[in-house]
């Protein structure tokens, strides 16, 4: 129920956006994240985009893990 899946925004269509779940595409409602743009990654839950994904933060997480790795 709380499953949310990342998807890339391909096209904005008013309250909806066409998003790509790595191949599977569908329209989701973007009223909870109205500022998303084509090319952004969003988390989709029950047909709604609920939050933008921060790609820079994702990269930083990976770098943080690299540090853990190199310290051991």
């Amino acid at each position, binding site marked *: 129920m709380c499953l949310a899946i990342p998807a890339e925004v391909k096209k904005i269509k008013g309250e909806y956006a066409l998003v790509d779940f790595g191949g599977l595409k569908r329209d989701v409602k973007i009223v909870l994240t109205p500022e998303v743009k084509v090319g952004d990654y969003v988390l989709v839950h029950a047909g709604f985009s609920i939050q933008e*994904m921060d790609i820079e933060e994702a990269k930083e997480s990976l770098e943080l893990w690299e540090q853990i790795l190199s310290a051991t």
Partner: protein
Amino acid sequence: MLEFRDKTTTKALIKEIRKISPQNNIKVMHVCGTHEMTIARWGLRELLPKNIELISGPGCPVCVTSASEIDFAIKLAREKDVILTTFGDMLSVPGTDSSLSEAKSQGADARIVYGIDEATKIAAETERQVVHFSVGFETTAPSIASEILESKMLKNFSIICSHRLIPPAMDYLLSSEDIEIDGFICPGHVSTIIGYEPYGVLAEKFAKPMVVGGFEPNDILLSILMILKQIKAESPRAQNEYTRAAKKEGNVLAKKMMNDVFEICDKGWRGIGIIPNSGLRLKDEFTEHDGEKKFKVEIGKSRDLRPGCKCGEIMKGKAIPQDCPYFRKACTPENPIGACIVSSEGPCYIAYSYS
């Protein structure tokens, strides 16, 4: 996302966890079915030191929806000329005597929708009454709120409001004297909405580490490492591991919509009991969209648990599915006795699938 599953990183994280792990037993609880899915699917419990125990808490909305709410939905769908919509798992969850799927097989018009917007679309295209049986935590509630705000003109649309809030449930568990918890992996997707400030309040109140965790195996392991570091440093606080999606303040617009539409109420959690301030109900101005007020349906005395069913204890983290006499025997996903074996995020379903 594959990098978040990188085995070299996994090994390094495990090594760090072993290095920092104290001698005494540590119980880490999570409250999210998707976390349990990651833990079971990747066998993370087996990778951890024996004294680090990962406990599954009440993180499955389908599992904690009261039998009385399900009984109401079943009777409504059976007796009134309504189209009842709900999320997939809710159809099979047993109420006191039957389920919505049984009612459907006997002629009730119960339909599965992926999102609430599909339910309002149905309402816009029919004269009949459409009632959405609406369950879910803070992850789901904003989409419901936004649709209620948009559907003000839809006189034939209402919801059975069965939404619950996670931080009050964590507060309840931490306040229970018979449940031991040394730290929480906080639910990542709930946190994309509420942020992680509410956990700071709990961390201070109970002096327990609270780490918002993502859903890849390395996310879970790093969250555990962060909890252990907090325990070692005796510095319990709210921290965020899931930085790529959960922000400190969460989704401000989504929170505003929730506040505009819902108000907080006490709520019964199936098998656990009433948890103060843990539920949402529609504000008075949205009464015409409140299915429970709109339709007069009398239900009999409801029963959350069959005698012997351990779902309540499992939800509280006091038992595991294998402790239940029905598990895998009389109770299976195809023929559920308890609610925890129905949803793919239910702890019994996950244990059934992966062990």
